[in-house]
């Protein structure tokens, strides 16, 4: 039996943060084992209004405000997952994941393995990360690489409301610990989402080609996807036709989509907000070159912030993050004039 969702999709655009709410609502209606825990997820509805209405609909057992104890309640969620619930956990800012690395890495990621396959740890942990809102060095980080480095975890980073909806729903149904790294700068962004059923799932582990092109493959992540698409649209007028790939799931990484794009374009640009050393970009380049060290016609480029904390002042943060201009400029340098359209 289908329950109608609260946002009739065809009528009004879906906001990024409302996609979060919608995913939770649909999955909590579908499965009573799904519960939601975190700081201010309850009656207040969250700092970005991301959980508004859920406490009212599902009650205090299933939607519960926690004290400020990221390690404690993440570990609690894992214990709950081992005993039959399917918790969703909110960590307000991605930077605060530093407070619960042990539960995630030493417990959730390894329990199934360590305990001989006796348990599953179906937890979806979501958090608002990345920069672009002048939140300063301790509130702007993108730490996806850490979790992609750890076996036993899955990592997703949705770049749109639609992807947030479909990926989060899949994450909640997944039997593993999935980290969903949302982008703060996208929170209020919206788009028309033409989905009126409550079973819209985007499979984990699949990249999406967001724009088809022929000259260069741009792998863009999170909030960088829109910027890359905008850059590509402008550059098309200059004869540069970029293919944009959004991995969506960072671990396990779907490298095949990237490889087949590169077979065509032979040129690779990676754009992400995370730091460059040992980041997702490094991993993509390594995988591509291990696959075929002659595939690329020019050196691959990682366009990321400089190797420094995220500065607060708006002027500095604008320069710090990759943007449409720096993406365009990089692509112009990569695609020789004589190969353009």
């Amino acid at each position: 039996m289908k329950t109608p969702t609260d946002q009739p999709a065809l009528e009004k655009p879906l906001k990024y943060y409302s996609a979060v709410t919608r995913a939770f609502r649909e999955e909590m209606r579908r499965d009573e084992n799904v519960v939601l825990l975190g700081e201010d997820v309850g009656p207040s509805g969250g700092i970005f209004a991301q959980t508004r209405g859920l406490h009212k609909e599902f009650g205090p057992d299933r939607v519960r405000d926690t004290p400020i104890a990221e390690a404690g309640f993440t570990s609690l969620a894992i214990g709950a997952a081992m005993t039959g619930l399917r918790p969703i956990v909110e960590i307000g800012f991605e930077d605060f994941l530093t407070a619960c690395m042990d539960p995630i890495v030493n417990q959730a990621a390894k329990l199934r393995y360590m305990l001989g396959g006796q348990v599953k740890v179906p937890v979806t942990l979501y958090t608002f990360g990345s920069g672009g809102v002048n939140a300063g060095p301790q509130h702007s980080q993108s730490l996806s690489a850490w979790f992609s480095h750890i076996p036993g975890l899955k990592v997703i980073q949705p770049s749109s409301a639609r992807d947030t909806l479909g990926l989060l729903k899949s994450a909640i149904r997944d039997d593993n610990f999935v980290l969903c790294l949302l982008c703060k700068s996208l929170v209020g962004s919206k788009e028309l989402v033409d989905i009126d059923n409550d079973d819209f799932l985007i499979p984990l582990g699949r990249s999406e080609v967001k724009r088809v092109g022929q000259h260069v493959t741009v792998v863009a992540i999170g909030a960088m996807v829109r910027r890359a698409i905008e850059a590509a649209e402008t550059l098309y007028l200059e004869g540069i036709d970029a293919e944009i790939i959004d991995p969506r799931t960072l671990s396990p990484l779907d490298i095949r989509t990237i490889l087949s794009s590169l077979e065509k374009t032979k040129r690779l640009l990676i754009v992400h907000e995370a730091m460059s050393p040992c980041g997702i970009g490094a991993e993509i380049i390594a995988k591509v070159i291990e696959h075929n060290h002659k595939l690329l016609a020019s050196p691959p480029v990682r366009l990321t912030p400089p190797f420094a904390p995220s500065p607060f002042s708006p002027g500095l943060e604008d320069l710090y993050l990759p943007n449409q201009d720096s993406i365009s400029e990089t692509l112009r340098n990569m695609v020789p004039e004589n190969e353009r359209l």
Partner: protein
Amino acid sequence: MGDLTPTKALELHQKMWEIRLFELSASRLYKEGALPGFIHLSIGQEACAVGACLALESNDYITSTHRGHGHCLAKGASPNMMMAELAGKVTGYSKGRGGSMHIADVAVGVLGANGIVGQSAPLACGAAYTAQVKKTKQLALAFFGEGATGAGPVHEAMNIAAIWKLPVIFFCESNRYAELSPYDVHVSVPNVSVRASNYGFRGLTVDGSNVAEIYEAVSTAAADARGGNGPVFIEAKTHRWHGHYEGDPMTYLRPADRDTENRVDPIEQFEKLMAERLKIGDEAISAAKQTAAEIIDAAVEYALNSEDPSPGVMYEDVLA
């Protein structure tokens, strides 16, 4: 009012006004779009910052929180450089790299506001450990909220401080809310100062709107700590008048906390006490307020007239 001299009282009073006016200016500038990012104001809590910091020596240390403007001002940080930092200017304490949550002035003992809830406590223990090893007779005071007392690192810090008898004061501004949720979401006991008994040191709860009471409690605790008796935990029951952050619609407020008519204004209350008990005249009181206003107006001007940081600033000071 204990042993408060009129001079000291006027000092406390003026500092409270500086904080109040700094915060009100920040609130206005934020609304006007002149301050980017997130800011967390301490209006209503002025007595805590002032009572605590003015009971310390100038070379004592404090560590602060996301809601740190009052603490920093009370300990002697420059309003100009603070406001400039809030505005993201190069003349700010962090050259615009840190913003409101990272104000520090090490020269006056401010080891930094901090955006991570709970970290003020162990960092302060570190400063106290230095004082202990170097036998400097300094101490460190950590500010944090009642919400922070749920966080593991605060507990770890209190335990270590107790075992090592560190000269540290844990000063909790218990302001009824942590972010968007009330006290009882975070704490299961009526007074969070019982936390101290867990570790066998002294804990007390004071009226966080009464600057004189706070001043006295911290003075005593400071003497204790300096005397080698180890830590003290002080909980000051206070009110956060504004939202968690500026722009917070505060839809979550409980009915009792919506009543802004009957709440105590720590500054007004102290002005009454100054007049009645210390016989300080109206003019002196107004003059102090006036001085505070001039200082803060100048800070606003300074901030607004300062330059943005040049791009190079972004790359500096990553490593020493």
